[in-house]
């Protein structure tokens, strides 16, 4: 093994400090007794208690969860189909446009996505609310799911499907009995990614939500604009914890998938 240089160790230490210190401080100060976010006043969980009494935050959290659950489920369905179409259907009319519509939303500035989809809802006279936020989230999440499925399919041995057909299995049953179980871990990671992205989104939700459909990021945003408070730290800590839990689950599933494919 080649010797691992001092520069590399230094880069990793500085890099990871940069990535993690802000989040660690954020979590730390959510347990601060003092209202001042910069002065340590002793350990306390009182901000979490206050959070529990904040009906606005609880409502927003419920809306966010509903939107995230529904949008990630539908996005996973649509994105899986799109990914399979891209990786297995070869040439078809309008393939370039389709691929463009899959890759573009991933880099497109969120303000453009939010504005354009909102103006569409207004043109079609769809009232803004939970439904419109959900539809918007499905649209960008499905693109990420599709890319995850595509990258899974790029290492998928097509002769496995052919073997099933060859043994008398119909194409539809081949998908259900063979392809689907094999790519299921990728589908689950796609769902988890969609779910967290929906949970995180501020800009697109701000454009597409209406009265009564304020999401948690929107609520946090309006609180942040009024100033830094330990309550925001507390709600952020809960979200970070939930996401960490999801990521650990996803990585365990991912490991199982790797074991299966090798």
């Amino acid at each position, binding site marked *: *093994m*080649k010797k*691992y240089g001092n520069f*590399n160790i230094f*880069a*990793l230490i500085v*890099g990871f400090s940069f*990535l*993690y210190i*802000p*989040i660690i*401080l*954020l979590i730390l*100060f959510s347990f601060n007794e003092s209202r001042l976010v*910069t002065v340590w006043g002793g350990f306390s969980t009182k901000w979490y208690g206050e959070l529990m009494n904040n009906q606005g935050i609880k409502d927003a959290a419920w809306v966010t969860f509903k939107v995230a659950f529904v949008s990630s489920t539908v996005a996973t369905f*649509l994105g899986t189909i*799109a990914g*399979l*179409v*891209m990786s297995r*259907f070869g040439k*078809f009319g309008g393939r370039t446009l*389709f*691929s*463009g*519509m*899959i*890759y*573009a939303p991933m*880099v497109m*500035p*969120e*303000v*453009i996505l939010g*504005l*354009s*989809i909102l*103006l*569409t809802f207004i*043109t079609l006279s769809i009232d803004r609310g939970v439904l419109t936020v959900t*539809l918007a989230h*499905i*649209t960008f999440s*499905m693109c990420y799911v*599709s890319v995850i499925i595509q*990258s899974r399919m*790029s290492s998928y041995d097509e002769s496995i499907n052919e073997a099933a057909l060859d043994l008398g299995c119909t194409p539809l049953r081949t998908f259900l009995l063979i392809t689907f179980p094999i790519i299921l871990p990728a589908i689950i990671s796609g769902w988890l990614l969609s779910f967290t992205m929906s949970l*995180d989104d*501020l800009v697109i939700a*701000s454009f597409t939500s209406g009265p009564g459909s304020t999401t948690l990021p929107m609520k*946090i*945003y309006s609180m942040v*604009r009024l100033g830094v408070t330990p309550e925001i730290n507390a709600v*952020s800590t809960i*979200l*970070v914890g939930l*996401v*960490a839990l*999801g990521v650990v689950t996803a*990585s365990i599933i991912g490991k199982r998938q790797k074991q299966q494919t090798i």
Partner: protein
Amino acid sequence: MDTKDKKHNFLKRIFNGRNAVISIPYLWLLLLFLFPFVIVLKISLAQPIIAMPPYTPLFSWGDSLWPKIQAGLDSYLFLFSDSLYIKAYLSSIKIATISTILTLIVGYAIAYSIARAPKRWRGILLMLVILPFWTSFLIRVYAWIGILKTEGLLNLALMTIGIIDKPLIIMNTDLAVYIGIVYSYLPFMILPLYANLEKMDMSLLEAAADLGCRPIKTFWSVTIPLSMPGIMAGCFLVFIPVVGEFVIPDLLGGTKTLMIGKVLWGEFFYNRDWPVASAVAIIMLLLLVVPIILYQKSQEKAMK
């Protein structure tokens, strides 16, 4: 085979299950991704009025048989007449360019170090890079407010050690925006770079060293050119969305930090001038269409 048979096959080909499967996600994206841009374009050509919706219709049927088209470039002319917008576009591109370069430097160092780490560590290190990316963007930006503000943790730490005796003004400046962007977009840079560097054949570097190439020179003349696809993918992934970034300049930048995403937000939510907001979006899209197409092509190539 007679023609009737052929025609039957042709119809079968159009209405087969394959096309039905393709059409589900295709129609969804057409309706909720592509069609919206047509709407934005349409509204950008209308006039603002105080009504709901607050713009004039593009077509109106008067007494004549043909609809009267009320399209105007007023919104676009307005954008070019007020220097605020042009400055905002230029400033967005400047901020996106500088922060892409900064992210590339930081990201390259980290990606390179991970790719050269012992194999058993690489998975964990990469996981550690991705982990913050899963947490909310808003929360990560918010975390920096507490650190960077004048009475924040950074100034507190520096003054306690005694490096400075007056607090640094970082919050609400462009510097804070750069820090926020590098921090938030770092994983987008590291992932494609790492994927590329990890695959790189170490024997090439050894061959260069063997031929008498000094390490620094090897890095510039072998490693960097070979990792160009990763560099390009990472830069697109950072540059394109940063041009339209809203949250970071809004929360960390000051009133002097001009970015087009913030302008669009303001036109829409505060001024309620939808035609101008739409025109701002269309011009931004025109600026980004080339990098977006380049990005899509590079991604499609990578998937093969």
